[in-house]
């Protein structure tokens, strides 16, 4: 009898694929880590944990906490928008008309969306002029600060504008796939109010199908750059802006700190992603 078990040959193209995905990250991360530990660099004085210690104090720690908070609230607002819009499209007659409009913000680059919102919300912007013309306030000094403000309102508006509609589109598709109109009818016939259907059926059913997708957006928002760059204040800054600030300063002493922060960010995203990929394996990795 002939033995026909064969060794699976290594596909050179797949090896190249892995190399293209992994090597640039490894080399980049390796260099940054080495720099952050003082092992390389112009002012290198040998191995040191100084840069990493500075990560946990002052500006760097503020930037990290601020980024986390901004990510959280952006995601919450986008989710509220998306759930409200998709639910309205499900239960309100005529609300389906909302659907085509949801695609419009997808045509905006983050830079453009940030600038457009700036044009609307800055104290001398369109909204301020419109409300001034209507006699709502007495001038620039009376208009509340909505961009480059302490509450990061401008950033949150842009993030909601960019992410909310995308999630709303996804949620509507998922609601149709879950046959939500029929489910709602069934739940109503069993005595549930619309509020109960929303919280007990709609929200969990959509989350089960789209949770992975939403969390990926969380990862994206954690790395947002252009929007806080244009609409954020100089203090506190998001992590990405903080890192590029440190990188481009004339003071070379800041470079190890910038590299430590960049490595920490990249490692945090990778660990988070690893967790997401194992938890939502079926949704994310099923070709």
């Amino acid at each position, binding site marked *: 009898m002939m033995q026909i078990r064969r060794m699976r040959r290594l596909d050179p193209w797949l090896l190249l*694929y892995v190399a293209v995905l992994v090597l640039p990250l490894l080399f980049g991360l390796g*260099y940054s880590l080495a720099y952050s530990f003082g092992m390389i660099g112009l002012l290198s004085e040998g191995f040191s944990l100084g840069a990493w210690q500075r990560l946990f104090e002052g500006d760097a720690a503020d930037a990290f906490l601020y980024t986390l908070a901004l990510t959280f609230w952006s995601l919450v607002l986008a989710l509220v928008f998306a759930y409200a819009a998709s639910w309205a499209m499900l239960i309100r007659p005529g609300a389906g008309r*909302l659907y085509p409009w949801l695609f419009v913000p997808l045509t905006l*680059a*983050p830079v453009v969306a940030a*600038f457009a919102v700036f044009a609307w919300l800055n104290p001398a912007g*369109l909204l301020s002029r419109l409300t001034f013309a209507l006699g709502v306030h007495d001038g620039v000094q009376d208009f509340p600060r909505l961009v480059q403000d302490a509450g990061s309102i401008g950033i949150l508006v842009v993030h909601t504008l960019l992410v909310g509609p995308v999630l709303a589109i996804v949620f509507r*598709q998922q609601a149709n796939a879950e046959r939500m109109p029929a489910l709602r009818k069934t739940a109503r016939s069993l005595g549930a109010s619309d509020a109960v259907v929303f919280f007990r059926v709609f929200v969990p059913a959509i989350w089960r199908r789209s949770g992975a997708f939403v969390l990926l957006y969380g990862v994206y928002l954690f790395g947002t750059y252009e929007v806080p760059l244009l609409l954020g204040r100089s203090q506190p800054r998001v992590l990405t802006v903080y890192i590029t600030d440190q*990188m481009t300063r004339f003071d070379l002493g800041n470079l190890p700190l910038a590299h430590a922060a960049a490595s920490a960010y990249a490692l945090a*995203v990778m660990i988070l992603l690893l967790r997401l990929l194992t938890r939502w394996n079926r949704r994310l990795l099923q070709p």
Partner: protein
Amino acid sequence: MQKQKKHAGLGWSLVGSLLVLPLLGLVYVSVVEQWRFPALFGDARFTLRHWQAFWNNGNGLRGGLGLSLLLSGSVALSAATAGFWMAGRVARHPQRRFLLGLAYFPYLVAPVILGVLWQHWWVRFGWSGTFGGVFLAQWLFVFPYAVLFFAGFWNDRFRKLLFQARSLGAYRRKLWLGVVLPMGLPWLAVGLFQCFLLSWFEYGMTQLIGVGKVPTLTIRTVLFVQEANPHGAAVAGLLMALPPLVLLGLNRSVFLRRVGGSGASAIPTDEPHAGPR
């Protein structure tokens, strides 16, 4: 009753049209000058001067548009075709989940941070500040996206269909010409467009790797903002929104993951993109 429904629809259209306000704001700012507070309509002067400046390339915008089109077009074309083909190889491999999982890493780390991590190597190899350098850096995160996107096409059902075609006698070339390409063309079109947008919208990495020497439209927009020239920024922003708006007008399915009628999608619903950005 019918009338009431119509009115409700109109109301929701009005709510939806709020999402167009940012774009309308840009259009307005791009056609006014001497825009001192509180000038709005009566006191502001309307002009096409900013658009003429673009047309005459007086502010470098036309060059920026050409550069962006060339950069994003070439990144999208190469990454989407390579991604389409590679996704097929990945999908056929027993370890496809692992291989696909790898693609999320370069794609989801913020491009500006990738720029920080790669800057040293790009400088070292002399790629920093060059078109090729920016192209390569963008390609390295657009390509993984393309693989993730096209993995939806090479799903289980499509692989079964391919096997059926093979057992009916289709060998490699005919398989591609007779089944893969005709069925994949709508996917390729959408994937190409989405890869184009990824590169078209990118700012942070282009700025870091290009060190200002590769002035794409996004770079120009931020420069205008920093120069306190809102009119130039508005023109640049509208130019950036133009290609996606045209495609949205033609067919909004280009923003969705699944292509109608292709019959090959693992995910039973339409999802915009394989992930964010």
